[in-house]
């Protein structure tokens, strides 16, 4: 079976937050919830300083710590290697958020719009998609449950790359099947020294980074 994963080239990443915004626009996430997040880290002291960007997303681990602890079976490891949350079964206990070592999960704790009580036209689309927009994911209106990146399942159905990959202007992101040894992602991991975050935890993430 396939194992969808991502490779992020940290040398190419310019830290523009493009993936963060593309994800928000694509998935209609409410304020405070960023499935794709760019972290910044400063190293050294002046004048020998360096600023690093680390784009984060759900690691879609092969051994997900979140899936193990989920009491209601809402979090599932899919056959294509992605980890998904069923918004209709999640009871909102947030145990998965406590267990996830990467902080990739978010709790949708209340009905929230970007600008006060009124939805913007764009948020309106997310909440209630008009004709022809059915392919877009609905911004799930129920609150009180956990959500996270699903590697743009709706885009993958149309054989498109996830929004963060398609929108990365530095072409720092690659999407593909890690189980296929001839895929671009497998080759990059193999040839350019791809590494996972916190491999010692045994979670075996499907998101690899290429060293700076």
């Amino acid at each position, binding site marked *: 079976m396939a194992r969808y994963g991502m490779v992020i080239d940290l040398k190419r990443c310019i830290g523009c937050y493009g993936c963060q915004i593309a994800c928000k626009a694509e998935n209609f996430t409410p304020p405070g919830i960023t499935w794709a997040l760019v972290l910044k880290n400063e190293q050294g002291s002046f004048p020998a300083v360096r600023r690093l960007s680390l784009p984060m997303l759900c690691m879609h681990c092969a051994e997900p710590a979140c899936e193990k602890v989920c009491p209601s079976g809402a979090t599932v490891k899919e056959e294509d290697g992605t980890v998904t949350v069923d918004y209709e079964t*999640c*009871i909102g206990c947030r145990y998965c958020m406590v267990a996830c070592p990467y902080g990739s999960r978010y709790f949708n704790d209340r009905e929230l719009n970007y600008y006060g009580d009124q939805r913007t036209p764009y948020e309106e689309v997310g909440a209630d998609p008009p004709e022809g927009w059915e392919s877009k994911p609905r911004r799930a209106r129920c609150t009180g449950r956990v959500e996270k990146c699903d590697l743009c399942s709706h885009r993958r159905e149309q054989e498109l790359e996830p929004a963060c990959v398609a929108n990365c202007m530095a072409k720092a992101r690659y999407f593909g099947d890690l189980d296929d040894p001839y895929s671009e992602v497998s080759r990059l991991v193999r040839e350019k020294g791809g590494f996972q975050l916190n491999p010692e935890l045994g979670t075996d993430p499907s998101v690899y980074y290429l060293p700076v």
Partner: protein
Amino acid sequence: MSFENKWGQDERLFEPIEKTGWGFRATVAILLVLVAWGATSYFRQVKYGLGVTGMAEPVSWGLYITNFVFFIGISHAGTLISAILRLSQAEWRRPITRMAEVITVAVLFIGAGYVLIDLGRPDRMLNVLLYGRYQSPLLWDATSISAYLTASTIYLYLPLIPDIAILRDRARKWNFIFRILSLGWQGTAKQQKVLNRAIAIMAVLVIPIAVSVHTVVSFVFSMTLQPGWHSTIFGPYFVVGAIFSGIAVLIIVMVVFRKAFRLEAYLKEIHFSNLGLLLLVMSLLWFYFTFAEYLTGFYGHEPEEMSVFWDKFRGQYAPHFWAMVTFNFVLPIIILGNRRTRTILGTLIASITISIGMWMERFLIIVPTLMNPRLEYSRGFYFPTLTEWSITIAGFALFLLFYVVFTKFFPIISAWEVKEGREEGLEEVDHRVRSYLPDYGN
């Protein structure tokens, strides 16, 4: 044996049931107001979502889970202590057991309730039964706690039967309830034998269940890979802390009801002194586990572990941490280690500090770890909101309310067991001591 004869000297035990004073009414009224306030806060939370709490990434568990662990911990006071004292034939247990058992049953409801309050979608909680996955430690909790609740309810009820029969025979209002609940108890020798046997079986059964309960509560934390949680001693550490806080709460309850119901003749200095000694041992054990836990973390010196460690030892949670050590170890050792200060007042003071200290311990296990996630960027702090505090206070009020209402229906000291101690215990102990000695035959 009939029940008409001489309840004269134990008459006091039935007084709170048959007379309703202004003290009782005022207490219930105040507690009801607090509970109602908490309920309003909860409805607000259901309406607007968990956003009204201070919980946000990365701290996704806060006061509610702290209260859950604390209340489930207190529940160990009761049934476990009572079972151990019964099985070890400690004669001084007689006026204490019922008080302890009521704590367990009352507190388990509230503890389990906090998990439900913490849910983002309480309307979907049955999904745990419908689609539940048994590899989640939360389901182990659900199993263990419901088993414990069942067992300790039975264990509270069995020794209550003879007392319910007494109440039935005293012919008061709502007699039919007592007639049903007493299950036709007449106090015949055969009934007594069956009852004693049933109590003994439940006492044995309840101990492993009680131990399992807090072990499994600790597993919720220790099964994850988070720094400061992933520890093999968490099970016993939690059980020790549970018994520790449980005894402290038991002593507080005893002092309160001794005063309120004028039970000085039943709850004597010696009972507090004995429980105080037990508390002293648990305090030392707690310190031993705490020491072992933190030394192991410190010596290994993993960066993730250390950020949690320093947060507690000299960071933003240092005042809480050192207050906890003072409340749980330093003060109790000073007060309880000295025979002259191990008085009723002394044990009460130690118990109050321990109750506060153990609540803080639960908080300090949960929150600092969540505030220092493995990927070391901090993305927020945790300040509990008014809603969370209101619901916390309401939980404590509800516990007291359960307790006070219980004392309105049933005697808080087991009358028949005190009587049994008077009539049979003395002789039995005399015989038992004789059997230990070399000069007497078997």
